[in-house]
């Protein structure tokens, strides 16, 4: 394992410290417990938005703290959800009196820790609502799983809910629009290589040189199936087809297309995937009206990509277009 880190135990704290120094115009880093909040502090009367989760998915979530998006982000250890005693103070810090929406990726650990944190915060008088993001179509949502996972669609939920909060929607309305994004967003990912969690010291799975993992999550978990390496155009179809099907997209609909890198994939490859996804959507009569291509929800240095589609309507489009000023997303 070769990484630009010092003691593996310190990587999260040192990285968040560096992040805070580099973006001191946007965020402040709180220590003990560790969380990241907007530099300007709470906005009175605005619904607060808090998200968080295991580290290793950067820029998610701290990279999305700022005007028009999150009020606070809570980084856990690598791939490990943060603890309630980190999340609860972040919720308190984000509360401007209008309540707080927590955006939680649907993993047992995240759900349990945020649940406990919400109880703690509510005991302190903060109204908390939670939206669970579960956009990963690789996992069947059935009795036999912990439900679908939250992956790259989280960016869309945070951006759009953030815009709703910023324009002054109340907690119910912000939660409702966030739920609407969750209902209309689906993702699927592929890994060409595994990633190495610093404290584990070896790759999260072993993948032969001529195979890829289809249906991976964002924690270096193995995917649903292993298939022979194939050209990008075919791989893109493997990812996009189940997304489109699960969404029940039909001709004439408008969508946002996000091609997300897992951290170690060159931008040039992401655009090759994007190009093919555009063509496949065009074949189905689906119009891509908004796009995002880059590393947004990553798995350390994993090579691979995910394709996310969000069904848009006028309101979601307007909220997506609303100004945002964070370290990783800005317009």
């Amino acid at each position, binding site marked *: 394992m070769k990484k630009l880190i010092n003691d593996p135990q310190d990587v999260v704290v040192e990285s968040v410290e560096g992040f805070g120094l580099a973006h001191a115009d946007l965020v402040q880093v709180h220590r003990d417990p560790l969380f990241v909040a907007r530099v300007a502090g709470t906005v009175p009367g605005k619904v607060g938005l808090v998200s968080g989760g295991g580290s290793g998915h950067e820029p998610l979530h701290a990279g999305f703290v700022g005007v028009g998006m999150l009020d606070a982000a809570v980084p856990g250890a690598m791939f490990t959800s*943060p603890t309630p005693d980190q999340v609860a103070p972040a919720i308190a810090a984000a509360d401007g009196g209008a309540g707080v929406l927590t955006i939680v990726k649907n993993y047992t650990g995240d759900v349990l820790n945020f649940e406990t944190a919400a109880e703690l915060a509510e005991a302190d008088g903060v109204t908390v609502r939670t939206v669970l993001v579960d956009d990963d179509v690789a996992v069947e949502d059935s009795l036999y799983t912990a439900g679908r996972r939250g992956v790259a669609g989280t960016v869309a939920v945070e951006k759009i809910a953030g815009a709703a909060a910023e324009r002054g929607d109340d907690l119910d309305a912000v939660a409702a629009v966030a739920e609407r994004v969750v209902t209309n967003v689906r993702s699927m990912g592929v890994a060409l290589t595994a990633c190495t969690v610093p404290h584990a010291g070896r790759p999260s799975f072993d993948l032969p040189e001529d195979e890829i993992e289809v249906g991976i999550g964002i924690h270096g978990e*193995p995917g649903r199936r292993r298939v022979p390496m194939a050209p990008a155009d075919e791989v893109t179809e493997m990812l996009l087809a189940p997304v489109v099907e699960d969404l029940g997209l039909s001709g004439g609909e408008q969508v946002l297309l996000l091609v997300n890198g897992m951290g170690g994939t060159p931008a040039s490859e992401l655009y090759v995937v994007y190009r093919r996804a555009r063509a496949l959507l065009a074949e189905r009569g689906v119009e891509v009206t908004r796009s995002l291509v880059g590393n947004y929800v990553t798995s350390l240095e994993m090579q691979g990509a995910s394709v996310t589609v969000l069904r848009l309507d006028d309101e979601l489009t307007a909220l997506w277009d609303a100004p945002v000023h964070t370290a990783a997303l800005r317009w």
Partner: protein
Amino acid sequence: MTLDVAWALDWVRRSAATVTEHRDELVELDRLIGDGDHGENLARGFAAVVGRLEALPEQPAQVGDVLRLVATTLMSTVGGAAGPLYGTAYLRASKATATSALDSDGVVAMLEAALDGVVTRGRAGAGEKTMVDAWTPAVAAAVEAADHGAPPSEVLAAAARAAHDGAEATVPLVATKGRASYLGERSVGHLDPGARSSELLLVAAAEAAAAAD
């Protein structure tokens, strides 16, 4: 023969030692069907527990005081699924042990409360390939041993043996809860890391009891 606060403290220290010793094994088990952090999470958590125990001005009066400290520390330092699950288990167990010493029935009550905590938080039943599959037979074995009049140390020894068998029995299961469930059929053939760590913690409890005998 009862298990007192000194036993509880010894259990905690042995727990910290065993999760540290087995850290890499637990990481590897979790790497295979999860995200490779379980050993790291528990090692971090129990190191923090020991640190806080050592910082205590005086020895706690009740077994439950020790277990409450374990609960809150794990809750605030472990994260992931195991943090809240073990945290709740120890919290419930601490409520069932508000006494200076446990007899065999007290041990059974403690273990039942712990299992109850895991199930309440995690909503998993037996056979879903989780730590519940270690705790469920452990509690059953403890009940049986206590019913037969076994002393506390033997109750814990029976629980630890049953936890071991329960953990091993997770190998052929398909996971339907937690992160391993994302693998579907591919989770078959691997030992659940949480079941294994549960076994380790119960073995530590039994060893502390044997040492106290």
